[in-house]
């Protein structure tokens, strides 16, 4: 993406220097706006953490932005009512397996499209892209019926299997593959008489590593946040992923504010941690996917 750097370096530097000097007030206003917006982005989550450490009486009566001593009480209160760690484990399992599956199948598919010139390739790929335009809710009722026929309602498979065919992942990996995997590597593997799938698993897949991990984080978060599909396809409390469990708790224990804040915090904190570690990769994969599209 890097194009020719400014040819007239000194001139540009003077320009920049002049503009930084001249626009002092403008710069201050811009920084104030940027900081204000950043505060708005953080405050709700800060309040969430603070309020999860207070009891009902405090939350119901005063505004506070300092932590309180009741986090353990809220936790015990919550643990006596719902099994939040079960929800956590459910989310982890569902998001983990659907991410791994969709990445592997996505890579297989992308490899097929990127490196083999079979008949109907263009049409099949266009069809695949077109499916991204179709909203998921169209399938929801049919899916409910299908899984009820298969006896898979209220089973993890009902969420994981449809997620395995992720058109966006195919599209994303294909873009990466075309620029980073030269045909010569595949050719030489063939000359060494490696089977096609062996070539894929042992040569292509490792090269895809960085792209796949960036995409994987993103897929994982998307799956973690999935709400409507599990709400529809699951019935038992011990199967629900975390977001659904937390949302339903509102209906059952709506007046227990400390508990609710803590539940929300537990459902969001893993995302905050993942983002703190991988923000660069996450933002990068969003940008890449959008611009190539």
């Amino acid at each position: 993406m890097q194009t020719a750097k400014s040819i007239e370096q000194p001139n540009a530097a003077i320009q920049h220097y002049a503009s930084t000097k001249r626009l002092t007030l403008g710069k201050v206003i811009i920084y104030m706006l940027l900081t204000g917006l950043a505060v708005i982005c953080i405050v709700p989550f800060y309040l969430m953490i603070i309020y999860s450490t207070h009891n009902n009486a405090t939350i119901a009566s005063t505004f506070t932005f300092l932590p309180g001593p009741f986090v353990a009480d809220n936790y015990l209160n919550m643990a006596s009512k719902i099994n939040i760690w079960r929800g956590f484990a459910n989310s982890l399992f569902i998001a983990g397996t659907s991410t791994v599956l969709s990445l592997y199948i996505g890579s297989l598919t992308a490899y097929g499209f990127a490196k083999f010139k079979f008949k109907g390739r263009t049409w099949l790929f266009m069809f695949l892209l077109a499916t991204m335009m179709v909203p998921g809710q169209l399938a929801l009722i049919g899916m409910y019926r299908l899984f009820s026929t298969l006896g898979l309602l209220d089973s993890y498979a009902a969420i994981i299997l449809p997620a395995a065919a992720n058109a966006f992942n195919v599209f994303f990996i294909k873009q990466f593959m075309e620029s980073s995997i030269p045909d010569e590597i595949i050719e030489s593997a063939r000359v060494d008489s490696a089977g096609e799938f062996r070539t894929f698993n042992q040569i292509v897949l490792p090269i895809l590593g960085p792209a796949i991990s960036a995409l994987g984080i993103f897929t994982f978060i998307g799956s973690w946040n999935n709400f409507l599909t599990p709400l529809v396809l699951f019935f038992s409390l011990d199967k629900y992923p975390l977001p659904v469990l937390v949302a339903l708790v509102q209906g059952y224990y709506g007046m227990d504010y400390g508990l609710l804040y803590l539940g929300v915090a537990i459902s969001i904190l893993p995302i905050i941690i993942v983002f703190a570690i991988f923000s660069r990769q996450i933002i990068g994969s969003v940008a890449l996917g959008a611009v190539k599209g």
Partner: protein
Amino acid sequence: MFAKSIRKDHYGYYFIAPFFIIFTIFGLYPILYSLYISFTNFDGITTPEFVGIGNYVAVLQDPLFYKTLFNTLFIWGVSVVPQLTVSLVLAFILNDKLLKGRDFFRAVYFFPNIVTAASLGLLVSLIFDWQSGGLNHFLVQVGIIDDPINWKNDPWFMRLIVSAILFFQYFGYSMVIYLAGLQGIDPALQEAAQMDGAKKKHIFIHIIVPMLRPIILFQMITSIIGGIQIFDQPFTLTNGSGGPDRAAMTSIMYLYNVAFQSTRFGYGAAIAFCLFVIIILLSVVSFIMTSRKSRS
């Protein structure tokens, strides 16, 4: 070696087969099945009875369908216009290499996008609670209001708050996409304009915005697809009820209620396909509008 690679080409089918098999069974088949159900009065238990276009006629005469459609489009419109403009301006500002803390701001603005939408709706619901919400306590303590305001009792306020949540969740996302688009614009172009004495404002309006038109179109269309599907935030914000007078009940919430609470699957499926048609129409309209602008 060339001939050898030609002979391998049919392997492509093996590689793409798993995707298309899974997609056919768990993606395409359910969509077609939904389409079939939309022509029946299926209740989930008894055998579906074919009713022709009866469900569609009923949907088109259903005041609640129009109401939820209005709610959805209102919520979407009020959030998407500021979202796409504010994020464009922010992207322009944060693209300036001299600005300090660019990566920090970029990350902080993007962050709400990946937060669980359902949890965020619940969190906002808690903060805006009449008696226990932090916002009322804050406003009373600071002295802006004397008595707590019952925010969640006001239909228009409920719609606006969903819009605000969507703005909060998506402005950073659009900003990142604009930023990626800006990286693709040759910096020499901006520098040349700067040399000729163009102000930042003019560079923004006359160079940046026209060059980003494809990205703006991309954002419009993805936001239409996403906007019609708003569900998680208003659902948890209103505890599934849709708020006062169902003001914040979106079309997908209505679909959910009809199909999975009242088990009128046929009617729900018809709603889904009506929404799909609306998405396509809106996408086509925004495509035409954007390409017409570029000609003038």
